[in-house]
């Protein structure tokens, strides 16, 4: 180590100027004060709501948690609590686990797209010196899968392999080299079957479907899930349509591209219990699946979530390699570690589905959106994964933020011989959202109105219901649109920029937590549980199962506890790694963690708060409601000198019972419709976002450079603005990858051509635009201190914003993502040829000449703005159902007032001939309804 090496800047000082803690130098004064500051801080009125006597503005009204605000940490820019561990290299990721006596596991993978496994001979591998254990599919025949309704995975192939890279066997040896050699010595005899790569072919009957679901199998096709939904009045569409958009889209599959490849360590301890270390987003589902596959009760397994080097949905399934490690470790009697190469990460995949999506939009004379029709064929790859849900999300998450006259969705997810698609940031909503936002841009152009005004005049208000029955609570969509319009100087630029430069708008809508827990319907277990424990030292230990995957969930939970108890953040310690000590949590998916866990944590903290206030009240001989908490002290509201220290109050309340413990839980309120599939997309709250993107297009090469993004996201309340901005900027980067360069390329032989980070093109720092994050706070009534999600929703708008900006720049629409330069160039060339233009710089670019409708829209949106503001602040608490804009009475269900208003989840026979691509899945019968069957 060089002599100039400094482990931590400012080592010679006790307190660093940047406010971070110095290892071993944390100053704690004697009991009575606590924390690193010897004196009580002043109440920070800037972070206490104005309705509670502070200075924090509340444009969206009051919140039920307002009275628990202490001005300690909520709303302040807070570095993540695990940031020190990460930046100093002390965080322990999957592959950092080193147990004594460990051996290395290696997986044998299929070289064929689709084949029957005839036989496996492991003799030679077993004979190789250094090989400790070998396992094949016969060792673990039980099926598992992340969703209970679609368990279709095995630890290793039992009968068939379903894609190149599918697991066939595994070996464990004393070192990696031997394990690799052994893997190569395993002889597998295959019978190769006809593989399917094109999802369109997945809709057809075949001899050997990739999975077989018995009586529920749809014909003998490869359709895994089909969805039909029809709502609203579609009969009058033909007569009322003024503008019509029809967009046929192709989206390539994308992978999460997280930094840390999968890694797992399995160890059967001295008591015969499995200790499994894995970077999981959803440790609980892995826990369940392990119990099933290993045939061990759950209480004999301890799942230890390591630090997670990025998940984005790609670490949320229970994985076969986790089973393999456990099986090998059990056989070997030694800990087994398996770490993936990047290529293996691509074999596991679970990225966004490659999709064919068709969107039709009708707008009527008043520029109201009278019809939305979506058809989505999604390519699921070899396994179901989250696909059941994805199939719904591709349609139903398009039902807001706009008020619709009708909604029609047909979706189908098919199996193909590719690595499985699954959940990825913005699960199921991203591709359709891109298609409809671009569609609205086209509608606006056809009506010759401003696309932002078109949106502003068609928004659902706060506290309303969507056409399919989702309960919208807080809604900051309008403010988001207004802020990006202003920030980007939209009115000066849109349709006014020279060729090659363009600006575009896109909106987003996403769930903040999924309404129904996948695994324990109909039991009424809570979605999230948090335990607090405070011993005599005053430190608060928070036990939660919430998986911090870098999004900052531990920080959010620590923040809300610190806020309620008015303690410095360093007195709150989050323990969330082990299933042995953490209450069950559903994990980090569907943007649920802050909403649900922080709510549970507030519940637990309030319990402790009450005990502390009672104890202090007793000591001060004052009623508890006249006391306030502030920075390690509890004192009389009117005279801060009359008070006790936090520790004294704590010790008083600990008399006779010792450590204080409290438990908080969160469950969603009952909501949603009763139709089949009504639960898909239900959430206790929804986030809204609007982005404006500015691009430069090189018209000679088709290369697109996104230069600026104004990104407004409604997260209810930013508990930690620093983290919210990080999520917004990170989402921009990730979405920009999908819209410009990232794609999983399956070549002419169906092989994945680019399973590496050189050819799978994640944007570099040079491609990153200047992002201006704009936080909108709509104060969700049920969110913790008003907060909603900020992890996934912000990804959605960047795709359509860029695509629309490209159109503004060159007057050509490309409906095939990513917009690689070759596609853009081909589209430009085609147009040049058609219009007989030699120089691309002479291409006509779209211009806007406002029609009469524009005034109408401005008037309507001004009225709606007043309506929304009143509803947001609950000055108007009347019901609002989708359809009011079209003249319906908000107090009655639409189907009762309009005979033509449909609610249908199955096509009737007259519709069967008239369905989109994915919709044709409905022309097949399930086996149980087929005479003779297969």
């Amino acid at each position, binding site marked *: 180590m060089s002599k100039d090496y400094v482990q931590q800047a400012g080592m010679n000082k006790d307190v660093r100027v940047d406010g971070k803690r110095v290892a071993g130098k944390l100053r704690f004064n004697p009991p009575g004060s606590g924390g690193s500051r010897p004196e009580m801080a002043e109440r920070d009125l800037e972070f206490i709501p104005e309705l509670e006597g502070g200075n924090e503005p509340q444009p969206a009204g009051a919140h039920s948690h307002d009275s628990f605000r202490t001005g300690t940490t909520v709303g302040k820019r807070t570095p993540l609590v695990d940031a020190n561990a990460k930046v100093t290299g002390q965080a322990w990721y999957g592959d950092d686990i080193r147990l004594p006596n460990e051996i290395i596991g290696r997986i044998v*993978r299929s*070289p*064929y797209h689709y084949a029957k496994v005839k036989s496996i001979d492991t003799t030679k591998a077993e004979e190789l010196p250094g090989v400790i254990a070998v396992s094949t599919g016969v060792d673990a025949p039980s099926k598992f899968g992340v969703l209970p309704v679609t368990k279709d995975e095995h630890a290793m192939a039992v009968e068939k392999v379903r894609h*190149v*890279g599918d697991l066939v066997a595994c070996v464990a040896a004393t070192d*990696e*080299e031997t394990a*690799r050699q052994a893997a190569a010595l395993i002889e597998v005899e295959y019978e190769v079957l006809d593989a399917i790569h094109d999802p369109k072919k997945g809709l057809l009957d075949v001899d050997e479907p990739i999975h077989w679901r018995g009586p529920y199998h749809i014909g003998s096709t490869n359709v895994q899930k089909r969805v039909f939904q029809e709502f609203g009045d579609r009969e009058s569409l033909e007569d009322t349509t003024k503008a019509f958009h029809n967009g046929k889209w192709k989206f390539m599959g994308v992978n999460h591209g997280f930094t840390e490849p999968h890694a797992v360590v399995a160890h059967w301890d001295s008591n015969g219990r499995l200790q499994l270390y894995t970077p999981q987003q959803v440790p609980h589902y892995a826990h369940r699946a392990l119990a099933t596959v290993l045939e061990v009760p759950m209480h004999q397994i301890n799942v230890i979530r390591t630090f997670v080097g990025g998940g984005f949905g790609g670490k949320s399934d229970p994985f076969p390699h986790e089973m393999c490690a456990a099986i090998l470790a059990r056989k070997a009697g030694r800990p087994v570690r398996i770490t993936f*190469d990047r*290529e293996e990460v691509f074999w596991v995949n679970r990225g966004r589905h490659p999709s064919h999506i068709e969107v039709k939009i009708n707008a009527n004379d008043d520029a109201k959106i009278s019809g939305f029709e979506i058809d989505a064929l999604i390519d699921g790859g070899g396994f179901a994964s989250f696909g059941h849900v994805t199939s719904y999300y591709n349609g139903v998450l398009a039902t807001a933020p706009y008020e619709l006259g009708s909604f029609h969705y047909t979706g189908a997810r098919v199996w193909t011989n590719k690595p499985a698609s699954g959940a990825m940031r913005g699960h199921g909503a991203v591709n359709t959202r891109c298609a409809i936002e671009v569609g609205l841009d086209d509608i606006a152009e056809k009506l010759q109105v401003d696309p932002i005004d078109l949106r502003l005049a068609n928004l659902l208000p706060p506290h309303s219901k969507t056409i399919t029955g989702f309960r919208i609570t807080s809604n900051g969509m309008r403010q988001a649109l207004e802020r990006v319009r202003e920030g980007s100087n939209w009115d000066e630029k849109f349709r006014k920029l020279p060729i090659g430069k363009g600006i575009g708008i896109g909106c987003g809508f996403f769930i903040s937590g999924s309404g129904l827990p996948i695994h324990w319907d109909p039991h009424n277990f809570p979605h999230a549980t948090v335990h607090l424990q405070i011993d005599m030292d005053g430190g608060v230990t928070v036990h939660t199962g919430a998986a911090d995957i870098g999004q900052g969930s531990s920080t959010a939970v620590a923040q809300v506890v610190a806020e309620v108890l008015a303690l410095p953040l360093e007195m709150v310690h989050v323990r969330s790694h082990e299933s042995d000590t953490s209450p069950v949590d559903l994990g980090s998916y569907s943007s649920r963690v802050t909403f649900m866990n922080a709510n549970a944590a507030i519940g637990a903290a309030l319990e402790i708060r009450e005990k502390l206030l009672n104890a202090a009240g007793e000591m001060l001989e004052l009623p508890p409601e006249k006391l306030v908490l502030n920075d390690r002290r509890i004192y009389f509201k009117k005279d801060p000198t009359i008070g006790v220290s936090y520790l004294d109050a704590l010790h008083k309340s600990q008399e006779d019972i010792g450590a204080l413990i409290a438990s908080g839980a969160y469950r969603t309120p009952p909501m949603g419709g009763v139709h089949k599939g009504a639960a898909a997309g239900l959430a206790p709250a929804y986030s809204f976002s609007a982005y404006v993107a500015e691009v430069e297009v090189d018209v*000679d*090469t088709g*290369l697109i450079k996104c230069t600026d993004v104004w990104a407004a996201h409604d997260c209810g309340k930013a508990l930690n603005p620093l983290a919210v901005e990080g999520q917004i900027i990170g989402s921009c980067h990730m979405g920009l990858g999908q819209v*410009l*360069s990232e794609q999983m*390329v399956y*070549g002419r*032989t169906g*092989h994945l*051509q*680019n*399973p*590496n980070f*050189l*050819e799978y*093109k994640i*944007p*570099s*720092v*040079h*491609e990153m635009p200047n992002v201006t994050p704009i936080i909108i706070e709509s104060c969700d009534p049920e969110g913790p201190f008003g907060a909603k999600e900020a992890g996934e929703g912000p990804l959605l708008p960047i795709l359509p914003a860029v695509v629309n900006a490209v159109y503004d720049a060159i007057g050509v629409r490309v409906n095939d993502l990513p917009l*690689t*330069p*070759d596609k853009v*160039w*081909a589209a430009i*060339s085609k147009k040049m040829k058609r219009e007989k233009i030699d120089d691309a710089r002479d291409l006509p670019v779209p211009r806007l000449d406002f029609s009469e409708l524009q005034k109408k829209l401005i008037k309507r949106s001004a009225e709606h703005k007043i309506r929304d503001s009143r509803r947001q602040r609950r000055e108007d608490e009347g019901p609002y159902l989708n359809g009011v804009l079209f003249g319906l009475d908000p107090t009655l269900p639409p189907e009762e007032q309009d005979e033509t208003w449909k609610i249908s989840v199955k096509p009737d026979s007259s519709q069967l001939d008239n369905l989109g691509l994915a919709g044709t899945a409905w022309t097949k019968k399930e086996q149980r309804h087929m005479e003779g069957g297969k």
Partner: protein
Amino acid sequence: MLMPPFELHQPKSVSEACTIAKELMLAGDEFDWIAGGTDLIPNYKWHINSKPHVISLAGIDGLSEISMTEIGCMARLHDIAESEDVHPIVSDAASKVASSLIRRNATLGGNLCLDTRCFWFNQTEEWRSSIDWCHKCDCGTGADCRVIPNQNELCVATYQGDIAPTLMVLDASVHLIGPDGTRVMPLVEFYKLDGMTRNVLQPGEFMLKITLPDDVADWTGSYRKLRVRDSWDFPEAGAAAAWKKGDRTTLRVATTALESIPRRHDTEVSESNGDVKAICDAVFKSTKPVNNTSLPPRYRRNMIKVLIKRACEE
């Protein structure tokens, strides 16, 4: 990812390096030269044509010379990019190679001798086994070419180095040394149209340096690179042009990343009488990229017209 084991030789002088090479050849042992290793090591990690012996040139002094008329084979691309002594076309091309981290290690010699690339070839061993190997790394199977099937004679992997075309238009010469002594030749003659052999280097021979004509400082021009990302990416097509200041009749044009070698287009230029559009069309006609990089060949071929046009801009 584990590299296959190999023995590393670290000579301290050019003559020692030649001796080691000669001894290995006599013993019938295969070996590779390694300079910066940014091309070789990733290939080794993927078990692509790895050899049991590797001779490193890193310990030999005096191979990193950088001046207007001479650049040593071990000169790091970062140093070339940053140097004010190097011709601006060359330093510009060097600054566009891969990423800043890689440029710190990568060398001129390595870039000029870069192995050709192909998405059927630059894959892990497991991946290549799933396509039953390919002609360039057939693992003893005699596998066919996967880009142009049914012809297992020619490898059409693409040369994707950035610097070669700039040195070609400046008329650089390359100095090679091997067990049989040194030889010097124009860089344009160094490459050999075959994705496997790539260049004229004989067994045991390696590149010592390149030299440029004395009047090179009087030449001007530019290099244009087509890539999706402004970092990391190899060129999908590249064009360099140079001419003596004030004398467009001296125009030279070279391209890269379109076939298995970089190429200087003297015939196309002379037949076009200096008309840039005619040169673009002629090069377009004479180059036929194949589908083995990330962007489609039709696009890359069309883009060469744009790149040459831009490279020729005053």
